[in-house]
């Protein structure tokens, strides 16, 4: 075990607590070249066919710009380049990997994936533990210099080790390191010079464009010399920013760009305790969404200058597209003045502080999905062309790229990374990373949706899969003997889900008790029995946060065996569950609640339709049906009571596709029908969630994970009020109860009217969010929509990570397991909650985008005439909501660009648009007949168009 190893020990000095760790140097670390005569070659990845063995410096890998000039080692990285199969035969030193890991974990994971990819020749050389390549820091040598030296020593070692017949090249972007390497007799090149020497245009496109090059590129491109002026103000030096932050002149925060108005951004600042609004690209001063920026407040008299500060840019003033009807306020544009020029909406925002960005503390640049702006092909195809890239994400400005394959890329969805943005150029410069596929192609667009929403679709790693129990899995005798687990197999348990549901989280039972009461149980898949804290499986699930449902596919949070088999509460199979069991009176009053881990055996997995049919069919008298009916009775009472308490019956226009199993193309589209059975299951899930929320908060007041729904502010309800006022209805907003009642009273002439008002009201609400109970005070825990003082998520642990956390909390509160350490660390818990909100939101955005995509595909071959309702007025038309397909979009009364409109007058008060001669008028909520058709105004840019019939 310890034979033939020579060890040299070193101790490292750490912080105040002197950390001493041993460091063993070895003689059994091999070079990884298959043709090496000395080393063991079993794990070798480098072959003689590679033109050279490339030893790469950290700056070649890292993808992050760090605006500290003292760190030349970390400039711009080329991870995209390395991922291209054109580059191979790469040695990654452990010193480089360590640096990458410390600076950027995402890049580290990508480079690790490359190293473990059997198709790629990337070899990791543990230079730090090799006795001949380990270097000790010399007196006065900075860690950076020491690491540089270690990289050079390793490169030198490779050259000596493999002999002169093999070419070893050190690739570095650090001039100093390159100079020293050449002095020491090591072949060294910069990435640019190396890639150029390979002569492959596809690789050249992947090069990062350093700022200096950008200026020269501008000269070539911009023929108008007058435009080469300073467009943005220079960023302040870091030292000035630091001292400015200290003195309170500048405010630090994360810049968030309005999803629907890229010229408006917010910086949440702790120092002034409010959001600072940044209007216009000029004030944003080259900051991207997600950047950590330093902001200076503008003088108060400039606080409402809004549009005038925007850099006039006609190109960016995009027209509205037909899109899915928003489900909540977060999906809808946060536009304050809907009718430009009316000037009335503006004054309402002037009280909020606005500012401008003076410096960027940390960039949030990554790669973006989109396409190139259509442009004519330059004459000499194959030469370098400059193109503008338009991201799908409207928050991202256009990006200038250089490409040698313009012809190929024009009708493609591509990924582009941003490299730099200097104050002379209007747009940032970036480089092409890869092609996803043809624009409009379903698979391509689906992938764009996923990338756009930062959804991890990679297969689960071997490490994650190794955490799964061996298959086939079944309930074991130990599980049954476990005293924490109650055997509930004798109960008639059943589940009710959408048809074809494979990840069955929840099941129910309802037994009539002798005294006339009922025992009602909600049984939830016992996911935490398989997902243990701190395992790679748990880490992965924490990161993913939720399963994502697209129209044609599902991206699981947990690996498939867990999702569809081991955890899923399938019919006629024994499964582990976590149960909430109530005793209820026939009036649905809860007498007692208990919680237990259990073993159940579901006797039926019903779909909503089946369950509904059983309840409605009076001939059926089997146990399951009887139980269903009892439950339904209870649920109706509970629902009514909830509504009486002020819960809102909100509505959204959810659509459903029928998908062709072969082609995955949508065959039919329609509104999702909600049945009593849905509401019944929902009611019990709500009750279980509320019961669990009470229990965990009671036990762990500072560290429970709950879900709250903030009350809507007056400002948010403004559009609804304007509409209802125009219709002569009045809404009482004083409480959710008052609002619910006034919604009930809002009945119009047609049956759909009330639902429409509810849909509009729903859109005004913000979304519910997860939070850590220690971060807020109890009144803020309130769930407005459900009118519940406490709420959490417990019932879907297979597809939501929040529920997994809540399961752990509940288990700990029952004394079954110890609370994992993570719950002691409040900041960490808060960051988990934040990530869950982020993932949740992204998952919803992705689902919506997927539905939008399929809607377009559906209508591509099926121009349709249908009925729509006007929901919003515009100066040149109105926005129509099409209930049947759940979409909305603009209908233009005057053609775009045809400025001379003038014919139509908007009456803001009445929410009406009227022809000047008074012959025709349209008012809000009016029914109109429209024609829907997919058109292609520009090649390969299909869009759905609505026209008035």
């Amino acid at each position: 075990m310890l034979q033939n190893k020579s060890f040299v020990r070193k101790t490292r000095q750490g912080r105040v607590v002197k950390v001493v760790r041993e460091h063993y140097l070895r003689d059994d670390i091999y070079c990884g070249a298959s043709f090496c005569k000395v080393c063991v070659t079993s794990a070798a990845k480098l072959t003689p066919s590679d033109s050279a063995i490339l030893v790469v410096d950290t700056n070649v890998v890292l993808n992050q710009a760090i605006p500290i000039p003292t760190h030349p080692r970390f400039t711009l990285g080329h991870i995209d380049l390395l991922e291209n199969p054109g580059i191979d035969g790469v040695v990654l030193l452990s010193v480089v990997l360590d640096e990458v890991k410390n600076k950027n974990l995402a890049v580290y994971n990508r480079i690790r994936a490359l190293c473990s990819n059997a198709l790629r020749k990337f070899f990791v050389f543990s230079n730090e533990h090799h006795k001949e390549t380990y270097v000790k820091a010399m007196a006065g040598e900075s860690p950076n210099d020491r690491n540089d030296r270690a990289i050079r020593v390793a490169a030198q070692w490779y050259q000596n080790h493999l002999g002169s017949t093999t070419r070893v090249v050190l690739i570095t972007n650090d001039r100093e390191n390159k100079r020293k390497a050449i002095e020491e007799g090591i072949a060294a090149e910069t990435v640019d010079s190396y890639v150029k020497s390979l002569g492959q245009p596809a690789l050249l496109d992947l090069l990062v464009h350093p700022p200096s090059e950008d200026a020269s590129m501008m000269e070539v491109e911009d023929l108008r010399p007058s435009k080469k002026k300073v467009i943005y103000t220079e960023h302040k030096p870091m030292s000035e920013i630091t001292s400015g932050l200290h003195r309170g002149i500048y405010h630090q925060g994360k810049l968030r760009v309005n999803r629907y108005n890229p010229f408006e951004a917010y910086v949440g600042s702790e120092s002034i305790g409010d959001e600072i609004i940044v209007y216009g690209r000029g004030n944003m001063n080259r900051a991207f969404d997600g950047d950590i920026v330093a902001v200076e407040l503008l003088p108060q008299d400039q606080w409402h200058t809004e549009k005038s500060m925007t850099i006039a840019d006609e190109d960016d003033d995009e027209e509205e597209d037909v899109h899915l009807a928003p489900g909540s306020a977060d999906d809808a544009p946060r536009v304050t003045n809907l009718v430009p020029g009316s000037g009335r909406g503006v004054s309402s925002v002037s009280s909020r502080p606005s500012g401008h960005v003076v410096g960027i503390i940390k960039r949030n640049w990554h790669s973006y999905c989109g396409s190139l702006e259509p442009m004519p092909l330059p004459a000499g195809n194959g030469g370098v062309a400059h193109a503008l890239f338009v991201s799908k994400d409207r928050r991202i400005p256009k990006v200038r790229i250089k490409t040698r394959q313009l012809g190929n890329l024009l009708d493609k969805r591509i990924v582009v990374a941003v490299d730099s943005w200097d104050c002379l150029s209007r747009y940032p410069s970036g480089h092409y990373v890869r092609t996803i596929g043809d624009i409009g192609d379903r698979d391509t667009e689906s992938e764009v949706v996923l990338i756009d929403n930062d959804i991890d679709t990679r297969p689960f790693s071997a490490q994650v899969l190794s955490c799964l129990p061996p298959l086939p899995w079944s309930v074991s005798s130990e599980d049954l003997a476990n005293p924490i687990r109650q055997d509930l197999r004798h109960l008639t348990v059943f589940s009710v889900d959408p048809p074809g549901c494979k990840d069955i989280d929840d099941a129910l039972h309802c037994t009539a008790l002798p005294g006339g009461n009922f025992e009602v149980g909600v049984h939830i898949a016992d996911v935490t029995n398989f997902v243990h804290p701190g395992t790679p499986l748990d880490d992965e699930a924490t990161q993913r946060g939720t399963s994502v449902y697209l129209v044609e596919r599902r991206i699981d949070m947990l690996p498939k065996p867990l999702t569809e088999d081991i955890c899923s509460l399938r019919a006629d199979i024994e499964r582990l569950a976590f149960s909430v069991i109530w005793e209820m009176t026939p009036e649905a009053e809860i007498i007692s609640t208990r919680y237990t881990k259990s073993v159940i055996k579901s006797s039926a997995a019903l779909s909503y339709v089946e369950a509904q049919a059983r309840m409605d069919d009076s001939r059926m008298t089997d146990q399951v049906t009887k139980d269903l009916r009892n439950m339904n009775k209870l649920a109706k009472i509970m629902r009514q009571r909830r509504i009486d308490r002020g819960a809102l019956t909100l509505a959204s226009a959810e659509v459903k596709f029928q998908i062709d199993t072969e082609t995955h193309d949508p065959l039919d589209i329609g509104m999702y029908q909600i049945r009593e059975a849905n509401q019944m299951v929902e009611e019990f899930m709500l009750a279980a969630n509320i019961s669990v929320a009470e229990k965990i908060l009671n036990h762990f007041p500072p560290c429970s994970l709950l879900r709250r729904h903030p009350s809507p502010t007056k400002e948010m309800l403004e559009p609804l009020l304007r509409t209802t006022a125009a219709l002569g209805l009045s809404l009482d907003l004083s409480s959710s109860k008052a609002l619910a009642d006034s919604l009930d009273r809002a009945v119009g002439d047609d049956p759909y009217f009330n639902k429409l008002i509810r849909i509009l009201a729903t859109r005004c609400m913000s979304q519910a969010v997860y939070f850590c109970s220690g971060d807020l005070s109890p009144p803020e825990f309130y769930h407005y929509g459900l009118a519940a003082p406490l709420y959490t998520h417990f019932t879907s642990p297979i597809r939501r990570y929040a529920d997994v956390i809540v399961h752990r909390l509940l288990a700990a509160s029952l004394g079954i397991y110890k609370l994992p350490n993570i719950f002691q660390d409040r900041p960490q818990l808060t960051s988990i909650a934040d990530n869950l909100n982020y993932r949740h939101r992204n998952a919803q955005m992705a689902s919506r985008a997927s539905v939008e995509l399929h809607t377009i595909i559906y209508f591509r071959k099926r121009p349709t005439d249908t009925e729509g309702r006007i929901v919003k007025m515009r100066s040149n038309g109105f926005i129509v909501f099409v209930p049947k397909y759940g979409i909305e979009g603009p209908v233009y009364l005057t053609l775009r660009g045809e400025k001379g409109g003038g014919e139509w007058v908007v009456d803001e008060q009445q929410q009406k648009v009227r022809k000047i001669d008074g012959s025709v008028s349209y008012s809000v909520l009016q029914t109109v007949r429209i024609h829907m058709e997919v058109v292609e105004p520009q090649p390969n840019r299909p869009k759905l168009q609505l026209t008035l019939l």
Partner: protein
Amino acid sequence: MSVREWMVGLSAGEKHFIQGGIAQDLRADGRKRLTYRPIYVETGVIPQADGSAKVKMGATEVIASVKLDLARPNPSQPGKGKVSLFVSCSATAGPMFEGRGSEELSAELSVALQRCLLGGKSGAGAAFDPSCLSIVDGKLCWDAYIDGLVVSADGNLLDALGAAIKAALINTRVPVANVPAGASLDEDPDVDLSSQETTRIDTSGVPVIVTLTKVGRHYIVDATSEEESQMSSAVSVSINKERRICGLTKRGGAGLDPSIILDMISVASHVSEQLMNKLDSEIAAAEADEQM
């Protein structure tokens, strides 16, 4: 010294032999009265400490460590770090140190060393200047904790501990703490310790301790525990390079004539020079060894 007498059970003949040998200037182990046992020094023995050393004198073996901790200086001495010193005796040195058995001796040794090395309350007369531990005056400093551990006891513990602490101080590397300009030091100070640089403590003033043990009419240095069991009294003098006395402790029951004390001091002062040189060269060799 009840502990020591208990530990060394000597017969009358043995006692006589020891006393006689000392009178003849030929001690039981062959040494002269003013000769030391071989001294062996090793530094850096405790990797987790900021400075450490092990000193062996014959069968006596002691370890000293110096640990530094960030702290707020005492308001009355804003420009100085605090230094504290404790000694403990390991049970490995003998069953009488088991449990609480070592407390009395540990306390005695701690107080004697504090007197010899740390000087008075004002910090005057200390072995080294604690102002070298200051980082930001009145705001931030290093506190030094000096710990002595007796691993094996065969007499002359005080001198051995003194030597070990001296070696440990020389071995100490004080991390360079960079305080960012303008950083607030009033609460949790944000100190940059990332640089690998260290400084050293100026140890040129650290004295050596010489204990003269009076047995009969004579005094001896570096007494073994058998010899210590026969002493009438002992005088420990700490003397620095300039041959200035830094501290003085008299132990043992018998009273001494002041002139004898003065004589003992002058002998100690003479011996200290040899010990100092011997120790310095041993420490230098040990430090060079550790660098390897």
